[in-house]
Every structure is written in structure tokens, then in C-alpha cells.
């Protein structure tokens, strides 16, 4: 061991220090790769943990909860549940979100819990600042909350906003802005810990009124007496509950949301691994270069009696050393990156899924383990091949120049077999169905394509070397010839860097093509579907965590406007369906048929689609979104069984329509049908059709003026809604690009490090060049041409493979994870621009190596001899 550490010190460490540029580049590469993986993991966890933690902290000691189907529980039903008390204590809950608004325009979302404090104390802990260590009695607490405009917020939030007990705070529930009086401050315990202190407690009556949900509860929390086991009680309650009610454990809601976000998170995580993959290419690169360039030294070590095992160990230790430093740095970087990632994903998660806390999970032991648990083994794996090669070096290699002249690369046709097999495998895997809703095989296919492409890199470089001389000589004269000759002479070393760069570029191309296609599809869909003149929604969004219906007054104002021809009152909410959640929507089919238009997938003929929809009016029939149909493998005419307040009901699928607003699966039914099961719906969005000749902007302004300060409603005109749709769309993919840029940066780092190595290795040739009269400009030009060529080759491979991957993304991965049909569209402009950028970037990456090369003195050669 002592010898090993001595050898490691002398042979590896000193070398790493001497080659510090390359070591640093490798470490930065690993660090970025790990940081990106961690940051995405932390970001994903934050949106989910935020929600689950909120559920956990808010549910307190609740053992079971009785919930309704989608729109909560009808209070009328609750009256008949007196028997529940024989199982323990029962507390009614209504929950939702409100937007707090400060005078300076600052806005934050608060999670609002409405409780009957007289019942709630056994379930949850509330410690008020004003009461110190003593908990207030239920009655004292009721005194604080009983006013309909009373609210208790957390000390944490109050401190952040500079508020104190007795102050007023403006809260907007759905479309209603009201001033509330702060009657107390909760210490950071119990439910107050939820969502980073953005929590408000209200009396259940006040909350019901504020949320516009009179007559409804979200759930009944049950705290079991210790008489029965949880399972037994759950089973008994399940049997006794009337149709339309369910009993479940609180964690169930978290699991449903997790399911909902799963595809989004999975795809993000998969993307994040690209950067790590490229980082690992760097490790492989570094170790193999260090093996290749030091054959003689390895030979000398072997000649003086160092065993093969020890040589292997030394190079693995080199990889491990680099990986450990990289992972360590990556951990530090991850924290910063995760803040960026949370910001980039927040819009998406909030507008499409749930509102979440705006801070990522803190760095913990979990991340440390993850970083080293992923980084270290993978780094060792990446280094295994070159390290094995090092172990095979014979003592003979110690003799100088032994194999120097044998370095010219010859393409062995057998090497083409690997890529072929991998591409075949990719083809097969692309045809496989998803595994538990996740496109695992498709990702396997993508990985196969990527590795196939990587293995193809030497062949491509070889081919290029054969034809490159003519072109480059024409373009760049002798420097071009030299560059080409250099590249052709360094294929084994270069192909790793080229492969790494090509892989990350192919990902970028694939994603760009996918997003570009998606964007075009959405633009087309928006153009086809958005026909109304105005769209209204309450200021706080209707989502899984809160129900935000319009006030009747707002609906009256809208309907009463003289220039309004028709209003489609649309209601949507989330319903548990097969482990997860789907969205149920209802509107007036007749209004939609008269004024609007849906893009039907089945039946494809628009008139047939409209006819199917017309016939669905009043029937037990639904029109479902494409993502629902794909996710649950449903066809037109199939039956869907939904839990309604009146028990399970079978609905027939009348038509399938295209929808890109949500990947959750949407089922739309006519208002009349909906009414039979859920009762008269409150609208959560309004679609307004104006009379001919009306000016939407003017009507919008008039409506907003009528709403005044009391009602907060977002009114989009057709045009602004389209812009809004694209804004959300673009923000959804900003994280994707950010991840890609990091991966490409890492890859370019790899190019620079490889070039630098090649320069050092070619000192001898370079000094010959200088001797025969090349001046430093010519040498620099040559190296820059080499760099540019690497970029060009990588981008060329990247484009080709990227297009393959984009097909996979569009036609397999996307369909399997989100259930969207995307029309293929080539974003030519972006691809050309990015190709030029990549070329420039690689040339820039060549600057440092070029400078190093041109500075080598002409006497190097002679002094060495």
C-alpha cells in the first residue's frame, strides 16, 4: 500500500499537476455533469417535496380522510356520516390557495387551510406567537378566527412581509380580492411549516366563503381512536361510505400528484444525465490520453517490476481522484444551479401542474451520496478500458520510439459492426411499449443510438481524413493539409472527443427539432382551436391544490355586456383515475359547436367530429383528449368508468380531440350530463364570443373597468392568449436549452483538453515544422483549423444522429410520456445558426492550444536529441 501511494503520488499526482489544464478541464467537466444531475434531482424533488411536505405537515396526525369525487364533499352528505365518530375524531377541512398582494405589488401564493378549530386541535398543532409556549384553548382560538375577515398567518411570512398581528393583508381567492385582518401569527411548527411559511389559517366558514365553495368541504379528517387497526378501520369505513365518497390515507394525494408529475420529471432527469455522460467521456478521454502518451513511462515502470494490477490500480485511482474532486465541486455547484433550475421550471410546474415552494431542497446527505454514488462508479467504469490498456503495456515499451511510428490509424471494418448492432438494437427498442407509463425502452433506444454514433466516430474521422486533404488544401492551403494530416494521425485520441461533442450536439439537435416541431404543432392547434374573442380566468389558478371558481357577480358582468354574443362557462377539476389524476371539464357543447372549434383526432373528419359531439349532448358520453386516449389505451366508443358523487358511472367516449394544454388527460362532458352527477358547476374559466364588429380590446377594457378593484380576473383576448400559450410553452423548454448548453460547454471543454494534449504530444512534429520554416502564425492557423474541423465533424455527426433522435423523441418518447401527436417540423434557421455557433465555439476552444503550439521553440527538436 505504501508503495502504491508513493507511486500514485509520483506517477499520477505529479502528472496531473503538470498537465494541469487538462486536469482542470476534466474536473470542471465532471463537476458540471454531477451538478446538473443533482440540480435537476433537487429541483424535481422540490416541486414534489413541496407538495408532499405540505400534505404531510398539514395532515398532521390525521389517520384517514374521507374525500369526495373531484369537487369535494357535499355538506349535505356529511350530515349522514355521524357514525364516523365511532371510529375516532372527525374534523372538516377546506383547503385552497390565495394570492397575497402587498402595496408594493409583491405577490405570493399562500396555502389556506380552513378548519373548525374546535375539532381540529387533536389533529394539528398550532402555536401562536401571542400565546408563547401555552397553546390557546379551542375557544380562544375560535375568538381569533370567528370573524369572516380574520386570518392567522405564519410568523415566518409576517417577518418576510413586515406584517404584524392586527395589520391588514389583501388576499385574492379566485377572482375576489378582499382585505383580511391578521389575528395571530403561527410559530414555525405544525402546518405552519408547510410551503416555507406561505400558510394561512382560517375558520372553516370564512374559508368556505372566501373560496366561493359554500356547501362543500374538501375532506373529513379522521383521527382513529386506538380501538382498531388502521387497515381494519379503513376497510370498514370504505364499506359503510355512501357512493361518491372514498376513504384514503393522506399520503395518497401526494402519490397522485407524484404520478402526475412523473413524466415531466423523468424526462428532465433523463436530460440532465446527458451532461454527466459527456463528463464521463471526459474522464475516459483524460485517462486514455494519459495512458497513450505515457506508454514509455508505463513500460519503464513495468520493466522495473511494477505489476499489471498495480498499473491498473494507478490509472483507476487517477480517474477516482478526478471524479472525487469533480463530484465535490459538483455538489457545491448544484446548489446554485438548482436555484436557476427551480426558477426555470417554476412557470411550467405552476401553470401546468401545481403551485410549489420557490426554493429547492437543501443540499443534504442524500445529495452527497447521490453525487459520489453516481459519479465515482461511473468514472471508474469510464476509466476501466484505458486503464486495462495501460495494464497490458509491455516492459518493451520503455524503449524509446518503440511504437512511435506505428501510430497511423487504420480502419478495421470489424469496428463498423458495433454501431450496426447498436443501431439495430435501437430500432427494436423504439418499437417497444412504455413500461408503467415511462418510455424506458425508448430511452434505451436513444442511448443505443448515442453509443452507436460514438463508436462510429473513428470511421467518420477516417473517411474524412481520406477526402479532407483536397478540400482543406484548397480552402486553407498548406495549413489545411497539415491540420487534416494531424487529425487523420490522431484518430483514436480524437474520436473520443468528437464522439462526446457529437453526442451532446445530437441531443441538442434532437431537442431543438422536437421543440420546434412541438411549437409549430401548438401554434397550428392554437390557431385552429382558439376561436373565441375573450378568455377569462380568476387571478388565482384552478389547480390540483385549489379550486378557484368565478364569482357569480363576475359571470353576470360578463354575460350582461351588450356586445357579448355567447359565453361558454367552462369548469374543470381533477379527479382520481387509475392511480393518478385526470382532468374533468364541462362546458356547453352547443355553444362550442355554434361558435368554437375543436380539432378532432377521431373521427378525423371535422364534420363527423362535430356530429359526434352533438350526439353526446345529454348522454353519458365524454369527449377525451388525445393524451387521455393514449395514456389509458382508449379508443373512440370505449367505456370510461368515473367516480361521481352518485357512484361509479360508465361514460362512452364520443370523440377524441387534440389538446396540448395538459399531459394529464382531459375528459369533457356536456353541462347537462355533468349536472346530473356533480350538480350545477361553478365556472373556472369563461370563453366569450362577441357580436360581429365588436372590438375585443375595447370590450376587455370595459369588463376590467367593471370588475374594478374588487374582482381580479385575467382577461385575454384571442391574440394575447395565443401569446400567453407560447410564453408558457417557451418557458417550459427554457430548462431544456439550459441543460443542453451546459452539456455542450462540457463537451467543448473536452475538445480543448484533447487538442492541448495532442499539441504537447506533437511537440516534435511541431518543432520540425518550425524548422522547415513554418512561422507561428501558420502553426496557430493549423491548430485552429483542426479545432474547427473537430467542431464541424462533431456537428455533422450530431445533426445526423440528432435527427434520428428527434424522430424518436417525437414519435415514441413524447407519445409514450405525454400522449401528444406532434407534426415533424425542421427548425432550419435554428440548426444553421447553432451549427455556425458550434464551429465558432470549437475554434475558440482551439485558441489556447493554438497559442501553446505556436510558442514551442524551433530548437525543441535539437535540444531534445
Amino acid at each position: 500500500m505504501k508503495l502504491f501511494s508513493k507511486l500514485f503520488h509520483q506517477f499520477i499526482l505529479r502528472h496531473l499537476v503538470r498537465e494541469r489544464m487538462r486536469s482542470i478541464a476534466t474536473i470542471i467537466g465532471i463537476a458540471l455533469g454531477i451538478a446538473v444531475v443533482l440540480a435537476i434531482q433537487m429541483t424535481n424533488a422540490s416541486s414534489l417535496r413541496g407538495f408532499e411536505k405540505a400534505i404531510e405537515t398539514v395532515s398532521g396526525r390525521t389517520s384517514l380522510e374521507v374525500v369526495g369525487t373531484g369537487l369535494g364533499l357535499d355538506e349535505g352528505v356529511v350530515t349522514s356520516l355521524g357514525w364516523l365518530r365511532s371510529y375516532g375524531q372527525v374534523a372538516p377541512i377546506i383547503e385552497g390557495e390565495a394570492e397575497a398582494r402587498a402595496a408594493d405589488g409583491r405577490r405570493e401564493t399562500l396555502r389556506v387551510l380552513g378548519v373548525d378549530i374546535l375539532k381540529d386541535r387533536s389533529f394539528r398543532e398550532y402555536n401562536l406567537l401571542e400565546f408563547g409556549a401555552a397553546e390557546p384553548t379551542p375557544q380562544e382560538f375560535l375568538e381569533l378566527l370567528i370573524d369572516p375577515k380574520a386570518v392567522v398567518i405564519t410568523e415566518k411570512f409576517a417577518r418576510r412581509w413586515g406584517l404584524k398581528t392586527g395589520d391588514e393583508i389583501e388576499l385574492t381567492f379566485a377572482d375576489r380580492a378582499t382585505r383580511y385582518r391578521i389575528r395571530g401569527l403561527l410559530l414555525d411548527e405544525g402546518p405552519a411549516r408547510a410551503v416555507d411559511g406561505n400558510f394561512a389559517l382560517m375558520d372553516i366558514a370564512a374559508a368556505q366563503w372566501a373560496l366561493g365553495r359554500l356547501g362543500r368541504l374538501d375532506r373529513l379528517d379522521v383521527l382513529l381512536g386506538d380501538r382498531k387497526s388502521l387497515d381494519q378501520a379503513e376497510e370498514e369505513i370504505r364499506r359503510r361510505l355512501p357512493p361518491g365518497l372514498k376513504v384514503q390515507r393522506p399520503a395518497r394525494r401526494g402519490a397522485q400528484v407524484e404520478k402526475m408529475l412523473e413524466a415531466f420529471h423523468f424526462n428532465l432527469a433523463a436530460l440532465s444525465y446527458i451532461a454527466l455522460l459527456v463528463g464521463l467521456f471526459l474522464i475516459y478521454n483524460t485517462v486514455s490520453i494519459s495512458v497513450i502518451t505515457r506508454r514509455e513511462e508505463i513500460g519503464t515502470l513495468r520493466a522495473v517490476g511494477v505489476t499489471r494490477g498495480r498499473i491498473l490500480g494507478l490509472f483507476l485511482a487517477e480517474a477516482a481522484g478526478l471524479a472525487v474532486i469533480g463530484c465535490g465541486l459538483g455538489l457545491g455547484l448544484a446548489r446554485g444551479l438548482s436555484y436557476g433550475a427551480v426558477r426555470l421550471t417554476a412557470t411550467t410546474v405552476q401553470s401546468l401542474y401545481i403551485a410549489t415552494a420557490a426554493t429547492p431542497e437543501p443540499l443534504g446527505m442524500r445529495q452527497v451520496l447521490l453525487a459520489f454514488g453516481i459519479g465515482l462508479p461511473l468514472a471508474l467504469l469510464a476509466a476501466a478500458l484505458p486503464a486495462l490498456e495501460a495494464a497490458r503495456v509491455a516492459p518493451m515499451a520503455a524503449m524509446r520510439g518503440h511504437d512511435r511510428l506505428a501510430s497511423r490509424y487504420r480502419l478495421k471494418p470489424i469496428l463498423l459492426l458495433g454501431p450496426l448492432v447498436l443501431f439495430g438494437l435501437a430500432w427494436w427498442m423504439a418499437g417497444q411499449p412504455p413500461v408503467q407509463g415511462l418510455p424506458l425502452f425508448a430511452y434505451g433506444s436513444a442511448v443505443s443510438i448515442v453509443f452507436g454514433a460514438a463508436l462510429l466516430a473513428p470511421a467518420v474521422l477516417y473517411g474524412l481524413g481520406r477526402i479532407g486533404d483536397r478540400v482543406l488544401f484548397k480552402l486553407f492551403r498548406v495549413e489545411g493539409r497539415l491540420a487534416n494530416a494531424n487529425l487523420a494521425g490522431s484518430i483514436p485520441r480524437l474520436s473520443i472527443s468528437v464522439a462526446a461533442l457529437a453526442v451532446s450536439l445530437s441531443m441538442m439537435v434532437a431537442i431543438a427539432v422536437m421543440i420546434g416541431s412541438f411549437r409549430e404543432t401548438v401554434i397550428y392547434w392554437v390557431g385552429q382551436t382558439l376561436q373565441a374573442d375573450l378568455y377569462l380566468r380568476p387571478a388565482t389558478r384552478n389547480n390540483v391544490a385549489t379550486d378557484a371558481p368565478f364569482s357569480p357577480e363576475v359571470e353576470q358582468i360578463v354575460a350582461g355586456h351588450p356586445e357579448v354574443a355567447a359565453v361558454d362557462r367552462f369548469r374543470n377539476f381533477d379527479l382520481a383515475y387509475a392511480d393518478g389524476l385526470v382532468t374533468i371539464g364541462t362546458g356547453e357543447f352547443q355553444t362550442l359547436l355554434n361558435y368554437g372549434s375543436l380539432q378532432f383526432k377521431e373521427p378525423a373528419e371535422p364534420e363527423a367530429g362535430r356530429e359526434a359531439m352533438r350526439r353526446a349532448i345529454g348522454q353519458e358520453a365524454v369527449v377525451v383528449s388525445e393524451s387521455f386516449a393514449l395514456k389509458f389505451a382508449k379508443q373512440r366508443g370505449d367505456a370510461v368508468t368515473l367516480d361521481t358523487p352518485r357512484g361509479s358511472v360508465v361514460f362512452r367516449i364520443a370523440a377524441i380531440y387534440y389538446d396540448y394544454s395538459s399531459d394529464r388527460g382531459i375528459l369533457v362532458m356536456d353541462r347537462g350530463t355533468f349536472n346530473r352527477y356533480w350538480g350545477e358547476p361553478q365556472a373556472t374559466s369563461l370563453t366569450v364570443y362577441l357580436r360581429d364588429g365588436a372590438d375585443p380590446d375595447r370590450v376587455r377594457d370595459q369588463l376590467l373597468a367593471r370588475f374594478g378593484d374588487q374582482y381580479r380576473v385575467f382577461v385575454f383576448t384571442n391574440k394575447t392568449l395565443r401569446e400567453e400559450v407560447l410564453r408558457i410553452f417557451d418557458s417550459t423548454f427554457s430548462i431544456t436549452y439550459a441543460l443542453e448548453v451546459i452539456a455542450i460547454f462540457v463537451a467543448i471543454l473536452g475538445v480543448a483538453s484533447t487538442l492541448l494534449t495532442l499539441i504537447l504530444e506533437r511537440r516534435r512534429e511541431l518543432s520540425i515544422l518550425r524548422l522547415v520554416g513554418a512561422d507561428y502564425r501558420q502553426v496557430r492557423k493549423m491548430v485552429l483549423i483542426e479545432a474547427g474541423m473537430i467542431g464541424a465533424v462533431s456537428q455533422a455527426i450530431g445533426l445526423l444522429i440528432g435527427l434520428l433522435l428527434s424522430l424518436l423523441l417525437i414519435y415514441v418518447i413524447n407519445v409514450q410520456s405525454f400522449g401528444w401527436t406532434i407534426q415533424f417540423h425542421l427548425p432550419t434557421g435554428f440548426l444553421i445558426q447553432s451549427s455556425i455557433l458550434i464551429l465558432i465555439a470549437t475554434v475558440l476552444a482551439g485558441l489556447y492550444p493554438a497559442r501553446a503550439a505556436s510558442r514551442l521553440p524551433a530548437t525543441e527538436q535539437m535540444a531534445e536529441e
Partner: protein
Amino acid sequence: MKRLLAATILILIGLSLTPAQSDPWQRALPPFKFDFARDHSSHPDYKIEWWYYTGNLQTADGRRFGYQLTFFRVGIDFQPANPSRWAVRDLYTAHFAVSDLDRDNFRHAERMNRAGVGWAGADEKSYRVWNEDWEARHDPEGHHLLRASDATMAIELDLAPGKAPVIQGENGVSQKGDAPGNASHYYSLTRMPTRGTIIIDGQPIEVTGESWMDHEFGTSFLEPGQIGWDWLSIQLEDGTDLMLYQFRRADGKTDPHSNGMLVGTRGETSRLTSDQFTLTPLEFWDSPTSRARYPITWKIEIPGRGVVMTARAAIRDQELQTNESTRVTYWEGAITLEGSHRGRGYLEMTGYAGAAMGAFNN
């Protein structure tokens, strides 16, 4: 005249919860004509109302029990602005206690609820008042059916009306202070033959005996300067019922509003003024939990009627601590009477455990 504990509890609730606004509640003003059975039911126009049952019961083989079941209603917001069913118009509290006298065991429980979706309430049309699964109501024959249970105790009792209701005060109004309307409507059923079941630790026990019921409603009960009172309801073996109470003032004097009433076997009543009887504490018990010192044996003298009796707590510890609601601590328990007359009854003592009277005094 009244059971003051109820007043205290309701005032404590009402004081802190009533929104500051012009008082829409109806005041107790003469003349008031009681209408039974209608007036057993709730009177939601009045701010405060309670129904109070106590009784001494025994099994066939002589095992003795005492019980107390009380329902309180206090109006909080006469007409809540919030249309939600959960808006608190009235707050309902209930106390329940069982004294297992021969085993020297006392248990008590409390409930506090808003009406919400019918988890507590008091009907107006027919007599029914309830708090979750605790309930008092009329059956078709006018019997009072009581039902209450907690983890380790339960009662299910059938109370016959017994003697006719005794209307307290004059003209149907029991005056509390000098201002008009500072009064209540109040009646008592002083001897209600009772039968039913007591369940102790899951063990049902058939019992019979006699109960005493008070029902009072009004709006204003304030009476400054009083720190507590002692109240006795007694059913003598000769068929006479006796109610006695005294206020204790902060200055140590006995309040002149202290009062008493005798109810004869056929329901005929006669009042006792404070100078016509004396109550003298003889023996004390220190509560280990509240540290209050309660007189648990009293000498009762009514010189004009030849009454000299000793009222003794059947068991010492019959103290209720209502930590979940008002935090009022009081002693309410079964007593036995010996001396010139023999009998059984209930004794209520408040104001001995400091905090209880604080709010009442201001």
C-alpha cells in the same frame, strides 16, 4: 333562582366572541307566559340558554350513582354575514359527569361545537338539544330522554316530568339586576322519576332514581362584584324539594340576592329570602389538581321551618375541569342530607379555583 355556573360559562363564551355591534338579542321582559311543552325547546332569539340535568340514581341492590348532563347554547352572532353553514351563530357546549358513589369514582367530559352541518344544536319546534351524540329530547309522552357517552361512561335515561314546572321569579321573569331586561326566563322540574342505564367501563347497569332539571334563557346576566356561589338542589324523603343558593361577594359578605325555594309534594312553592336560612361550611376538601379548597360539608338551617340538616358530599372529588372550552373549574356533585330531614341532592360550588370568576367580575 338560577344555576350560576351556566351563566358564567355562557358569559365567558359570549363576552369574548360576540362581535361589537348593536345588540339584536331579545331581552327577558315581563310579562312572560310559559307555554309547555313549547318552552322546553330552544329560544334562539335569546343570547343565552341552558338545559341542566342532575340526579341521584341507584341500582336494585342499592349501588348509588350521581350524574350531571348539561347543554349550553350561547348566541355569538345573531345574523352572521357569512352564508356558510359553518358560520358560528351559536356555540354549543355540554358537560357530562358520572359519580360512582360507592366506588368513590368520578368521571367527566365536555363537548364544544358549532352547529355546522348539525353536529350540535337545539330545536325550536320540539324539544331536542344535542352536542354530537349527547342528546336530551322529549318522547311523545313528554318524557325527557337523555343520552350521553364518552370513552369510559355512558348514560341512557328516561325522565318522567314529575311535579309541574316551577317558574322562577315573578311574571315569568327572573330579575338579575336593576336594569330592565337584565333578567331571564327560568323554570325547574324539581323531582323527575328516572330510570335507565348507566354504562361504566363498558358494563351496563340498570338504575332508577330522581333527577332535577333547570332550563333558563335570557340575554343579560351581568352582576358585578360577585366572586362565586354555592347552590344546592335537594330532594327530601318527605317529598319536599328545596333549592338554596348564596352569592359570595368580593368583600366577604353574603349577597342579599341569595335566595331559596321550597316545593311541596303537590308542587306548591314558597320562597325563602336570604335572612330566612343559613349555610355554614363544616368540612373542606383540597383539590390536588386545581389546588382549590371546597367546603364539602354544609350545615343548613331554616329556622322558620324547623330544618337543621347536614349536607355532605357523597364523594369528595367531584370537581370538573373544562380545559377544552372555557377553562372554568367547579365542583358539582351528589350530596346526602341528614339531620332533621333526610334526602339527596346536588351541590354546585364555583369561584373557588381562582381563574373561573375573573371574567365574571369585570
